[in-house]
C-alpha cells in the first residue's frame, strides 16, 4: 500500500513538473528569413542586385512587451564590410504569434553591403521563383538578435547569395 502511494506521488510529481515545462515557453523563437526572389534549384532565397529586392524576417514572439531591443547585422562576404542596425520594434508588424519585418534592400557603395531605408514596413512581398545566372556577385549574412527585458538573447541568421543580371 505504501509502495502504491509512493508511485502515485512520484507520478503526480512528474505531471506537475511536465506542466511547469509547458508553462515556461521561450519568449522568442523560430526565426525565419526569405526574400522576394527564390532560387529554383534549391528553393533558397536570394538577392538580385539588378532588381527590386525585398527582404523579410519573422520570429515567434507572442508577447511583444518582453522584447527590449532588436538588432540586425549585415555581413558582406565579398566586401568584407559589416553594418549593425538597431531596429525599432515599431518597424515590425504582428502576424498572429509572429513579429514580421519587411524592407527593400539597397545595394551599392557606402562602406556597407547594403543599407535599409528606415521606416518602411507593414508590407507584404510576392515571392518570385527564378533561375539566376551563375554570376553570384556577393553573399550577405543577415543575423537578427532579439534581447528581452530579462537580458536573454535569441538570434537567427540566413545567408543570401547576391546575383547580378537576374532575369
Amino acid at each position, binding site marked *: 500500500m505504501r509502495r502504491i502511494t509512493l508511485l502515485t506521488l512520484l507520478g503526480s510529481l512528474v505531471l506537475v513538473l511536465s506542466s511547469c515545462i509547458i508553462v515556461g515557453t521561450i519568449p522568442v523563437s523560430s526565426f525565419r528569413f526569405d526574400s522576394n526572389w527564390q532560387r529554383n534549384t534549391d528553393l533558397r532565397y536570394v538577392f*538580385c*542586385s*539588378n532588381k527590386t529586392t525585398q527582404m523579410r524576417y519573422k520570429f515567434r514572439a507572442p508577447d511583444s512587451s518582453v522584447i527590449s531591443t532588436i538588432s540586425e547585422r549585415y555581413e*558582406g*562576404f*565579398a*566586401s*568584407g*564590410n559589416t553594418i549593425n542596425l538597431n531596429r525599432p520594434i515599431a518597424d515590425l508588424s504582428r502576424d498572429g504569434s509572429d513579429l514580421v519585418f519587411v524592407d527593400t534592400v539597397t*545595394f*551599392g*557603395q*557606402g562602406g556597407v*553591403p547594403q543599407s535599409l531605408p528606415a521606416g518602411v514596413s507593414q508590407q507584404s512581398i510576392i515571392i518570385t521563383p527564378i533561375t539566376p545566372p*551563375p*554570376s*553570384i*556577385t*556577393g*553573399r550577405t549574412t543577415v543575423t537578427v538578435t532579439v534581447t528581452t527585458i530579462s537580458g536573454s538573447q535569441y538570434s537567427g541568421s540566413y545567408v543570401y*547569395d*547576391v*546575383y*547580378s*543580371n*537576374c532575369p
Partner: protein
Amino acid sequence: MLRPLLLLLLAFALSSCILLVEDEPQRPVQPVQPVTPVTPVQPSIVTPNAGSYTYRCSGGTLVVNYLDNNNLRLFYDGAFQNLGVVRRSPTLLFSGGVYTWEWTGSRGTLSVGGRVVLSNCAL
C-alpha cells in the same frame, strides 16, 4: 679749286660706305626640315586607392577590391577572381583568366570571356 676736291673725297667716302654695306656676306639658305606630326600622349589612368569598392552597374552590383597599384580581386561567379594590370592608357585594364576589368577613371566594365556582363559601373 678746293671745293671740287672736297666733293670728290666725300663721294669716295660715301661709296666706300656703300661698299662696306654691300660687302657683308650673304648667308646660304638652309633647307626646311619636314615637320613630323606629334601624336598626343594619352594620360595614364590611376589605379584607385587600395580598398574595397562596390560598384553599381547596368546589370547589378560588383565588388572590386584593389590590393595595390597593379592587382585587384573581384567577386564573380561565386568566388574571388584575381586580376593584374595589363595597361594604363587609354584606359586602365586588368585581366586574369577569362575576366577583364576596364576602368576609364569614372566608369567600369566587366567582361567574361570577351563578353560584357556588367557595364557602366560607377560608385
